[in-house]
């Protein structure tokens, strides 16, 4: 490891209005090494990559490339210097051919300076074949599957004789055998002496392919060193910022203990939910009055699970029953009729209508039930609005106040009220307390508890582990789209949750 670093970042800082995205981050990439970059949502991984590749200019710190200081002012500069990036969302041109996508910007030309398509297609086919991808390179990229598109993106990066290859979540849309092919490519790139920066949440993959690791948390570097020296538990603890000692004291638990529950009919039973690349046979059972938390790291399939239950994520197989009755999958309307309502993750874009009044926002969903012959009874509206404003303790000057003027917590309550108007049986909450202040948070949490006590089944997602642990009666732990553990009763503790995330036991 004495070789001079290909890319060396020192004390990188980057702030956006209101947020410090990166602060004093160091990153060193020696040649011939695969370096893992890990961290939870918002840790600053994407920002760091964008700084390294010239998309963002850092506010502070120094970047040196092959021994001399550099300043990339745009992606082209970084690319010409030899830093290739495969971004998380595949950045290729869908309407153009596979070969064009591979060679855009450095197409072979004939002696008249015109593009030599024959040479380009031959070279493209040869290149992809050497990676084990057999595909007609003249086909428009959009006609190919996500896996092939991802391989084309990787091949493009690897083929440009890059000194540094950055891969951001490269396996998120790959089949297992495609992952094998990808790893062969990475090994080849490494053997050629390039440095690879590998970003992924999949611990198995990190341990398979990476030599060293940098852990980011809240925009800061919290660890750097060889990956082999870290246990999975240590790695997860670092990512989440939890005390390792404490976790270890708890020891490992058997997660297969599923104590016999009351024989009551579950209000929600999801069985074997499967959706390509995202969910692999997820089971969730919620009894009346129970709050079931979904645990997992980013990308584990928590949001996908609730979306599949709510009918907004198409599933390949699996069944959902509500109070014993089967619900047609893939239909939001059917799920709603059956009594399943969801509080979406993004309140602003998927939820409240800020320019409408509290009353209008609440009764929106209930309008069909409140109307007679197309006319809506104002008195019945007022009655419902009044009930919910009192019950959920919504603080507004009047039902006519615009929702946009309310605090985040009260907006969230308005949304809850809207869902509750439908008299649901199951409430799916995706990050219900994100972006609201501490006091309001406690109130929303208390409210969820009260609703469950009234017999509602609740599924809760939160990226804050305390919230899941405190709020839930049991926790279904997900990893890479599979249920890896179920915590019940006394096992519902933060330590056991984290241990389950790191260890996870055998795959379903």
């Amino acid at each position, binding site marked *: 490891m004495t070789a001079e670093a290909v890319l060396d970042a020192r004390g990188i800082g980057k702030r956006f209005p209101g947020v410090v995205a990166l602060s004093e981050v160091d990153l060193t990439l020696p040649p011939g090494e695969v370096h893992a970059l890990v961290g939870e949502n918002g840790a600053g991984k994407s920002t760091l990559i964008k700084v390294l590749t010239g998309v963002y200019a850092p506010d502070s710190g120094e970047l040196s490339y092959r021994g001399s200081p550099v300043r990339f002012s745009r992606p082209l500069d970084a690319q010409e210097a030899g830093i290739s990036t495969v971004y998380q969302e595949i950045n290729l*041109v*869908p309407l153009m051919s596979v070969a*064009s996508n591979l060679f*855009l910007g450095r197409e072979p030309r004939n002696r008249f300076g015109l593009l030599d398509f024959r040479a380009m297609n031959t070279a493209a086919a040869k290149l992809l074949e050497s990676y084990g991808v057999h595909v007609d390179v003249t*086909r428009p990229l959009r006609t*190919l*599957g996500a896996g092939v598109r991802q391989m084309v993106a990787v091949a493009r990066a690897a083929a440009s004789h890059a000194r540094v290859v950055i891969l951001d979540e490269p396996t998120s849309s790959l089949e297992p*055998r495609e992952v094998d092919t990808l790893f062969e490519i990475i090994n080849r790139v490494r053997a050629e002496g390039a440095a690879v920066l590998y970003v992924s949440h999949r611990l198995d993959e990190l341990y398979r392919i990476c030599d060293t690791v940098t852990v980011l948390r809240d925009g800061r570097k919290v660890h750097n060193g060889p990956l082999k020296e870290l246990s999975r538990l240590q790695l997860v603890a670092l990512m989440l910022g939890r005390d390792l000692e404490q976790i270890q004291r708890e020891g490992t638990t058997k997660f297969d203990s599923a104590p016999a529950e009351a024989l009551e009919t579950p209000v929600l039973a999801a069985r074997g939910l499967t959706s390509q690349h995202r969910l692999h046979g997820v089971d969730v059972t919620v009894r009346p009055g129970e709050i079931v938390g979904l645990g997992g790291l980013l990308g584990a399939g928590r949001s996908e699970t609730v979306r599949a239950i709510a009918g907004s994520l198409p599933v390949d197989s699996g069944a959902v029953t509500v109070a014993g009755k089967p619900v047609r999958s893939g239909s939001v309307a059917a799920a709603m009729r059956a009594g399943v309502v969801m509080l979406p993750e993004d309140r602003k874009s998927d939820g409240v209508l800020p320019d409408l009044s509290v009353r209008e926002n609440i009764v929106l969903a209930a309008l069909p039930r409140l109307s007679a012959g197309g006319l809506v009874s104002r008195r019945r509206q007022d009655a419902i609005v009044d009930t919910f404003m009192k019950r959920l303790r919504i603080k507004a000057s009047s039902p006519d106040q615009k929702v946009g003027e309310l605090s985040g917590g009260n907006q969230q309550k308005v949304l809850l009220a809207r869902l509750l108007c439908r008299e649901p049986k199951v409430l799916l909450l995706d990050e219900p307390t994100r972006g609201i202040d501490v006091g309001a948070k406690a109130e929303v949490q208390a409210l969820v508890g009260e609703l469950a006590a009234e017999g509602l089944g609740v599924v809760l997602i939160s990226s804050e582990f305390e919230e899941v642990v405190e709020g839930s009666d049991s926790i279904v732990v997900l990893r890479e789209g599979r249920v890896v553990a179920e915590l019940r009763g006394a096992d519902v503790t933060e330590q056991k949750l984290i241990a389950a995330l790191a260890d996870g036991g055998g795959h379903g």
Partner: protein
Amino acid sequence: MTAVTEKTAVVAADKGMTKREWIAGLVQRRGSLVVLALIVIVSTVAFDSFATVDNARNIAMQSSFLAIVALGMTFVIISGGIDLSVGSVYALGGVLAALGIQWGSLTGILLPLVVCGGIGMLNGALVAYGRLAPFIVTLATLLGARGLLLAITDEGSNTRVMPRDALLTQLGQGTLLGVGYPVWIAVVLFAVGAVMLQRTRFGHSVLAIGGSVEAARLMGLPVARRTMWLYTGSGLLAGLAGALAAAYSASGVTIVGVGFELDAIAAVVIGGTLLTGGAGTVGGTLAGVLLLMVIQNVINQIGTLSSHYQSVVSGAFLAAVVAIQAYLSRAHLGRERGT
């Protein structure tokens, strides 16, 4: 170098294009040509005066000016932009040619090219570096160029006549092998344009920018520089077309070119270029221009029909083409979701 083993060697399970996609693609690329051929055949049978050398020459000459403007527009639209200023710039080019010719033919042609190219470059700079919406930027220069035009012609009250014997006037009126010079110029420009779009890195990057500007940027293509040149080219071509049209009629008329940008956009879209960018051909645009002009000619041939119906028919074509495009892109989307 490890040889890739058999088990990993089957990444791309081949899914051939469906027949529907194939037909849809053909309609997209060649539809305007087929319709054009049909109309020409029907008109030849129906009207004695249609398939004559004079009429063909007439259509070709009328098409050449719109074609030159539409060529620049094709590149701009393929890149995902739009240039609304070309109608005004076209008129300005004509007036500047008539103004400049008093100092000689060279000034007569250079003045419109420099000014119109400059307006195009201003559009391009604002879109590429100012990151402003092309629709708004070029709407502003549409108004600005029209205003400039009125200012230099005293609100259009003086129409400058170009001397018949000047070289520039001859460029508009003279013929080679019985075909007017503007037609030859348009043909040459289209040939160059086709090669540029299909066979150069420049054209390839324009397709990439229109296909996904974010991808093009992250792939390291010089997006801003390319974008600026596209609008500059569009302004240049509009100015050239205006100068040629003025030379053809031997006068710089201020009232021309109103709504011309819409004709150009219509021709480009009818020619199969996606209004959302990323795909299109120069040849398609030529077919689109001819289609519009032939429709106009046929309506004139019918005689009893008001010439206003020309717009109705053109509009119907445009609507049909856009509907087909929307249908196609939905087919694409469905496919992407399916994979």
